[in-house]
Each structure stands twice: as C-alpha cells, then as structure tokens.
C-alpha cells in the first residue's frame, strides 16, 4: 500500500503546487489522478519516487507498506514509475533494455520478455536497436520493461498519450491485465478519464 501524508510542494517562487495533500492506496487498488495541466501532477509522482527538482521545496511523508521511505534513495524505495516521455537506454537493443529491468538475468526472464513482446505484437523488434523504433513502439516497450520488473507499487504518467486509437486499446487492455495479475498498487495520472477503466477511485488535484 502507498500512503501520502501532508504533502506540500513549493516552486522557486514559493507558490504551492501541492498543498496539504493526503491519500492512501490500498494493496492492488488502482487510483487515477487528474487535474488541469501544470498543476503539479508529474512533480508529485516524481516526489513519491524520490526524484526532486533542485529549486523546489518539498515536505510531507511517504509511506510504502506502512514504513516511512522519505530518507531512502529512489532505487531503494519499492516504487516504480513510467514517465510521460520514458527513455530506453540508447546503447542497448530492445531485449537488453527489457532484461536490464530484471535484477538477475536468467533464461526464464528471457522467455518471459519474448512472450511479453509477442503479446504486444513487437516480437520482430526483439534485437533491434532502440533508435530505429517508431514512437508507438517505443512507448510500448517502455511499458513492457516496467511489467517485466514486476513492481508492487507503480506510478504511471500519461501512459497512452503517444499511441493511435487502435494500438491504444490493445495496449491498455494488455497493461491493465498485467497489473491486476500482479496485484500491483497503481496510481495513474491522466487527463482523459476514458483512458482508464476499472479504476477504484479518482483523485483530483
């Protein structure tokens, strides 16, 4: 579960982007965070992960599975995230990118990665260089990379914004199926509530 208490975020001009913000997401719930653009949704997500912008001031507690994680660096919090413009590592091919998300690479992981790519209709790209991918392919591989990591808490920032309608539907189905299978606690940022179905609650910022 993920809990945020009294979160305040101020920008460099001391204006509050987020003020006294509280929520609790229970295990395997899916929440959606909406709000007009520029209100600080992405900043909030990044803060939950532990990525801070130097000029901003932050306060508030973040609890993962009831333990405080504020002092931990990003990679030691059990929080995973998909950025709005996620990046694949340019010096690795698609398969290497996927396997990089797994702590210890085994034969099992490779099979899993192949089947994931297969489900996304991307298996022909497995050994392609990342800079040959199109925008849609790129963001789907980013999704696949986070899924193979098997997160327990996942933050998602506008996951389907780069896709055309047909692929969007397919990808959305695939994504939510995997999330619910993994019993992953999820917080999704989106403008478009149509994007999201079977969410448990909508929070407005």
């Amino acid at each position, binding site marked *: 579960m993920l809990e945020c208490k009294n979160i305040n975020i101020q920008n460099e001009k001391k204006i509050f982007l987020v003020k006294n913000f509280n929520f609790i997401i229970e295990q395997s719930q899916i929440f959606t965070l909406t709000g007009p653009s520029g209100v600080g949704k992405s900043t909030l997500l990044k803060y939950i992960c532990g990525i801070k912008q*130097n000029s901003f001031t932050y306060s508030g507690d973040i609890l993962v599975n009831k333990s405080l994680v504020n002092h931990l660096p990003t990679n*030691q919090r059990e929080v*995973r995230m998909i950025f709005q413009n996620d*990046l694949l*590592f340019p010096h690795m091919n698609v398969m290497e990118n996927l396997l990089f*998300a797994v*702590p210890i690479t085994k034969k099992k992981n490779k099979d899993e990665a192949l089947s994931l790519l297969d489900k996304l209709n991307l298996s022909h790209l497995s050994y392609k260089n990342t800079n040959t991918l199109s925008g849609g392919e790129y963001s789907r591989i980013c999704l696949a990379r986070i899924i193979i990591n098997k997160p327990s808490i996942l933050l998602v920032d506008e996951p389907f914004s780069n896709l055309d309608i047909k692929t969007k539907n397919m990808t959305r189905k695939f994504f939510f199926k995997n999330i619910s299978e993994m019993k992953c606690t999820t917080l999704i940022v989106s403008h478009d509530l149509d994007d999201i179905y079977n969410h448990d609650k909508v929070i407005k910022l």
Partner: protein
Amino acid sequence: MNGLKLLINQNISFLIIFLLFGIVFLVIGNILYETISQLTIKSFSNDLMNFLPSISVTFFNNILSTICAIFIAFFITEYLYKKSYFSSSFLIVLISFPHISYCIGITYLFATSGLFARLFSIFYGNEVPFISYRGDGLANLIYIFSLALREVPFLVLIGLSTWKKINPNQIQQQVSVLGHSDLSTLMNCIFPLWIKSMGLPVLIIIAFSFSNFEFSSILGPQFPNMINVKIIESWYSTNTELMQHLNSLIIITILGAGVAILLLFFLRNAIVSYFTNTRLFIPINYNTLLIGKFFFLIVVLLFTAIISITFFLSISKSWFFPSILPTTFTLKGWSYMIENYYVLFFHSIFISSTISIFSLIIMTYMIEISQNIKNIFKMLFLLSLMILVIPQNIMLMGINNLMSSSPFFSIKAWFYFSLFIYILPYTYFMTKQSYDDFNPQYIENADVLGIKRLKSFFSIKLPIMTNDFLIIFGVSFSVCFYQFLQGIIVTKGEELLFNNEVLILFSGESISTASSGSLLNFFPAGLLLTIIYIRYRYARM
C-alpha cells in the same frame, strides 16, 4: 545505515577538496610569503617602473591574441557548423600538437632563411638570404597571431558544442525575415549568445597565455622580454641583481593575470551590449562563410606546414638555403632518439596516462557522489580557477619551496603531484560539462526500475558517455604529456618527461635530432586523439 553511508561518502569528497585546497593554499601562501617578506615598497616601485615596458608588452600581447583567437574561432565555428561538421572534429588532433614544436615550426617557417623565404628565392633567384629585419613590432605581431592560431582549434571545438545549443539556424531564419543581412544576424544575435557561454574556455586561454613560457621565450619580442622569460631568467640566475627582481615580478604577474581576466570580462560585456544595441543593417549580403573558410584554411595550412617542415628537418642531414627540400638525408636523428630515450618515452606515456586516469576517476567519483551538493562544485570551480590563474611558473616555484622546506615526501611524489594539479582543472571542467550534457532521465529511469547506483553507473552512464570520457582522457593525457616546467622548476632535472628532453635538445646543435624528438613527442597524444576522433565520428553518425 544508508544515511550514514551517504554521510561518509559526501564527507570523503569534502575531505578531498579540503586537502587539495589546503595544499594549493599552502603553495600559494608560501610563495607569496617568501616574496612579500623580501619585498620593500621602494624596490617594488622601482622594479615596476623598470619593467613597465615588459609588463605592457605582455599584457597587451596576451589580451590581443585572446581577442583575435575568439573572433577567428567564431568565424571558423560558423563555417564548420554549416559546412562540414564531422571533418571539423579532426581539429581535436591538432589540439594535441606540442606547443614547443609549434613555436619552433613557426620560427623555421618565417625566418629569413625559412621555408617562405626559400619559396620566394625560386622566383627571385637569390642565393643568399636577404638581410633579416625582424624588429620588435613584427615579433609582437608574430607572437599575437601564432598564439591566437594555436588556441583556435581548442576554442572551435568547444565553440561548436556551444553553437549547437544556441540553435542558430532558427535564429537566422527568424532574423532574416525581419530584414537583417547574414552578417548582422551573426554579429547582433548569435555572437553575443555564443560569447556569453564561452566564458570558461576564454578564461582558460587567457590564463594559459599568461602562464606559458614557450611562446614568450621562442616567439616573443626580446626588447623588452616578456615577463615569463624574465621570471625564469631570474630564477636561474647567479646574478644577484636579477635574482632580486624575482619577487616583484611574481607579484606583478599575478596582478597582471588577474587584471587581464577582469578586463577581458568587462570587454566581453561591453562588446555584447554594443552588438545587441547597435543595428548593423548592412544591405549587401556578404558571404560570411568565406571568412570562416579563409581562417580555417589558414589554420589547417599552418599546422600542415609546421608538421611537414619538422618532418623534413628530422630526416635531413644538411638542408641549406635556398634548397626547398633537404639535399642529403639521414635517419640518425630518429635512431638516436629511439636508442637513447625509449625508456623515458614509455615512462612518460605511463606517467601521463596514470595521472590522467587517476584524476578522471577522482573527478567522476566526486561529481557522482555529490550531485546534490552545490557547494562542492563551487569549491571545485574555485580550486580549478586558482590553479589556472596563478601563473604556472610561480605556482611551481611555490611547490618547490614547499618541497624543500618539508622533506616528507620524495621528489617523485612532488613531481607527480605538480603534474596532477595541472590536469585537475581540465578534467574537472570537461567532466562537469559532460555530466551537464548527460540526460539525467536515463538514471532516473534506472532508479525507478530499482537498479543500484553502481550498476546503473557502469551499465548506463559509462557506455553512453564513453566518448566523452575518452576525449577527457585524451585531452588530459596530452596536457600532462606536454608539461615541462615541472621538470625544470620542481625537480630540477631529476625527474623528467620526454618533452623536457626534446626542449633540451633544441638548445643543442643537432636540429635533426631535436625535430625527430618533437615529432616523436607528438606521436602518442596525436595517435590517441586520432583514434578518439575516428570513434567519435562513427559513434555519432
């Protein structure tokens, strides 16, 4: 536990900084104390009056050559950006050409019996060279232009990456829609932007021109000598009157360098505001690319001529005026160099690469663990600035004083240290630059995947930044390989680099040996940077 680890980590980098700061302060303080304690106001003002010609010559020559270098580099950058970006990175190989060989090459090109005079004599038919009339005016001119052209490759390389960030194509389109000519676009809009972000390289260049010894002694005027020559002269001298000048000269040089830097930055702001507030509506569309092309050709031709004349000197037995090519050939110079100096040659390569790798590792480590602590960078910047701005000969005299008053470490250790602190600023500036250019989202991406910092450093940062690290290594290697004042001032000949031996040979009678030495000297850094250049070229395609 983690917090503790973090604390220790950060303290280590503070510790390193304070240690370095401490030593540098000790060195500077030592030399300043020695100087000031022996200085009276009367003798200082006397010396100041006596050396006024020297001071003004040094001051104006250095400032003029820096300004020339900036403008030439600006036009070349424009030309290269628009025409042939990739062939331009070959200039990086020229950066590694040793200063001493460059100066001596210039002397052989422009002497009354030099290459140009010989070419001229084909048409004129004179058997004997003309009477030489190189007064001080001409010497100043040669000094200014050769120093400027030597610094151009360095400025162009950094200038190109700055240029890319400005996005000049878009600016140019927007401004030309408003009715400006090419030249006025360039001078009114792009130059102020460009020069504003070129502060650091310009600083490095002005600091170098104040601390270099080779240019002022080989190419500079003799009446009056430039200050650096005078300092070394009085440092060596047995003449008591000369020795007493040393103290005032040290103070004067430090002040001079400081004032020059301030003046240059004031000038920069003045020029920027002049260009942004003055409209150069020049109706005719000059082809500004031609200026850049012209300068680019000059730089390339000059370096080619110098390298080839050094090569011919190295294989010639006798080569008298007016023959264009040597008349008799010999490989004695090469075989002499290889036979006598191969141990030192490889030793110098080993020392330089060890020191540059060491300083690269230290810098990377410090930047890596203290990315969130702003103060560390400020302090590192200050430290690098101090090392660069205090003229090298003075700094090394301070190290030498310190060495002789505290015999804790061996001469070797002091020698390596004195090399190390001159690599440090370059490594710091370049590593910081690469880190700033590196997209932090790669690491954030790895972080949110739960990957440890160490792993993400080795499998993401290192592969992506390999080229940057290679270039940093190449440049700091060549900087280290071409140091020579350490061998003269700190160790006084007991520990040397190969470069020192080449310099000594140039004081002797065998030019062919000295020339082969100087080509051999160019070889390691040249080869290294050529490899980097080829890699760079293919990696970025």
